[in-house]
């Protein structure tokens, strides 16, 4: 039964993905992309990675899909194609041959990976209890590979600054994103009802991440989506770019993380070393501002640069 399930799932993903690449219309292709993401979330559950399934649902298919669909809608076929970018027939054949070769080689290699599989699961399971955390993925992100997570949070901040830098000069200082008039009807209703529920669920997922699937990236994405929903209905407005409040919310997470890291260097002799026995409270203290920064960052990335001056 499970094999049939896996085959059906993998087959469906492949068909939708192929269609996404081949579709004629960019907007339609975005629908295909979202469907792929949704099915991929199921695939991640089947692969025993519920944390990743959550992330894929929240970020890959969820806010990522919305971002691409909005882009497709706003471009409305206005993209001009650089003639140098259009593949000539012989090039197209070459590309197809190359990609087929890569896929075949990759498939062969993946099916022949060593047995028993090497990996870090035993090491992680052994190192888990002293951290006080129950979820090995969160432990990986917050203790032994905390550096990656810290730099990741910085990358989100950099992306926001980068996206803002693409504003027209005249619009600098304005509020991020296009202008939205207040909505009426069903959208206005949903934008009032859903965000409070989403807030609870998002925070629950951040909190649950210590011991089960979840964490700040996934929960933060949900919080960001809820805020954007309220924004779409014209209920909330982002502060102008560069405003103190907004920048503080963006910087708080990585800044606190950095300070904890440097405190580890000063006190325990190693950057990001957490005090023995207190690692869980310290991790939670990092995660709170980090969630705020990630949610703010993701929401601002989804909105894009300011389109007009304040």
């Amino acid at each position, binding site marked *: 039964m499970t094999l049939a399930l896996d085959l059906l799932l993998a087959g469906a993903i492949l068909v939708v993905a192929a269609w996404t690449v081949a579709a004629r219309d960019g907007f339609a292709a975005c629908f295909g992309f979202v469907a792929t993401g949704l099915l991929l979330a199921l695939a991640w559950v089947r692969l025993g990675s519920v944390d990743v399934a959550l992330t894929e649902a929240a970020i890959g298919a969820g806010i990522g899909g919305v971002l691409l669909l909005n882009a497709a809608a706003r471009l409305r076929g206005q993209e001009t194609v650089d003639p140098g970018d259009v593949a000539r027939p012989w090039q197209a054949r070459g590309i197809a041959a190359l990609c087929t070769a890569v896929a075949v080689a990759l498939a062969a290699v993946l099916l022949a*990976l060593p047995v028993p599989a090497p990996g870090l699961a035993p090491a992680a399971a052994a190192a888990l209890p002293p951290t006080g955390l129950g979820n090995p993925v969160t432990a990986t992100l917050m203790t032994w590979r905390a550096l990656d997570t810290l730099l990741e949070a910085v990358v989100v901040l950099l992306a926001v600054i980068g996206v803002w830098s693409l504003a027209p000069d005249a619009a600098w200082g304005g509020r991020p994103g296009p202008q939205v008039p207040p909505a009426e009807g069903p959208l206005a209703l949903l934008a009032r009802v859903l965000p409070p529920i989403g807030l609870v669920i998002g925070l629950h997922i951040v909190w649950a991440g210590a011991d089960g699937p979840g964490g700040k990236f996934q929960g933060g994405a949900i919080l960001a989506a809820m805020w954007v929903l309220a924004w779409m209905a014209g209920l909330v407005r982002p502060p102008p770019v560069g405003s103190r409040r907004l920048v503080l919310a963006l910087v708080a997470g990585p800044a606190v993380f950095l300070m904890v890291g440097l405190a580890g260097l000063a006190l325990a002799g190693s950057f990001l070393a957490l005090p023995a026995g207190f690692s869980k409270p310290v991790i939670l203290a990092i995660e709170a501002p980090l969630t705020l920064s990630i949610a703010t960052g993701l929401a601002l990335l989804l909105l894009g640069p300011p389109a007009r001056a304040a």
Partner: protein
Amino acid sequence: MTAPYALLAAALVGLGLHGVLAHAEPLRRLLAFNLLGSGVFLVFGVVARRGAAAGLEADPVPQAIVITGLVVAFAATTLAVALLLRLHGGDPPQD
């Protein structure tokens, strides 16, 4: 057990790479790049699942890598979309 997903991952990488190289429209390239990314993440997923041991359903390190990678991919996509809209978007839709 992981074989269907291993084959799927390889196919997604091939498909995505093809889209990135063969498409001329930037938005389609971006979509294809995201599919390529999904394929690569799925390779990590297969690796993680194969590495299940010591009572863990999957090796947590590749899982953490994918979570980080998904966030990076989203951020990169927003940057590309902002560039695209600035280049080709004209005015944002006025409702």
